[in-house]
């Protein structure tokens, strides 16, 4: 039997890799994918919790996460397209309108 810890550690590892990607990459599409990676990491832990606790709520949550991820991907990618159209770049550090 695989202990819950293993799953959770795997989830944490994937999450951290996603985060690392998000924090370091300039390319906004890859940042976006890192985000999806983090979501998946969370999904892993949710499903594993659900399994070990014999409860369906984890699955329900995963279901919603996937829904939201789909919505988010659609909107986010639309924004990326618009941005690229205006800025001619996919590098986030060149989009610094928020600079104070």
């Amino acid at each position, binding site marked *: 039997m695989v202990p819950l*810890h293993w799953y959770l550690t795997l989830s944490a590892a994937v999450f*951290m890799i996603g985060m690392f990607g998000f924090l370091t990459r300039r390319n906004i599409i890859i940042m976006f994918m890192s985000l999806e990676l983090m979501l998946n990491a969370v999904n892993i832990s949710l499903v594993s919790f659900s399994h070990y606790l014999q409860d369906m709520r984890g699955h329900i949550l995963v279901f919603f996460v996937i829904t939201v991820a789909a919505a988010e991907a659609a909107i986010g990618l*639309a924004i990326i397209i618009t941005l690229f159209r205006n800025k001619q770049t996919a590098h986030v550090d060149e989009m610094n309108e928020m600079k104070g």
Partner: protein
Amino acid sequence: MLQQLFFGYYAFIIIGLSLLVVTRKNPGHSVMWMLLLFFHIAGLYLFLNAEFIAAIQVIVYAGAILVLFLFVVLLLNLREEIALRQTVGSWPVAFFMCAILFVAVTAALGAYVQGPVGGYSIDVIQNETHAKALGKLLYTEYLFPFEIASLILLVAVVGAVVLAKRKLRS
């Protein structure tokens, strides 16, 4: 033992693929690695008796979302960008941050105490089938969030169209 070996394989591949996803220069390659990654995650779900989730992982994530990514990558001509510097600021800082956070989180796992188990044992799910059990819950207890999720999708559809559409006037 076999289970553990399988888990080891999946875990190893998932981490490796994740690293590949975040480190590739070309986003197209990343998407491809991610596709493979999602299939592995779906496999992991099967271990956990979540067939339906595994299915939508493949259908929605791999089939829909990733394709969307692929379209965007292809839509945007990123040839020039790929040649340029790929990271922002100092990646070691981010690396240490993530490493420390990983250690912290895993350390926190040691304090985990299992709570009482619920009514959905493996047998119950297998009797009822996973999709049916999930569906029952979704359409009864979680009907309201479910409806909201559908609304979110609708908004996303409209939003995506509005955002991505070229301005007619200009």
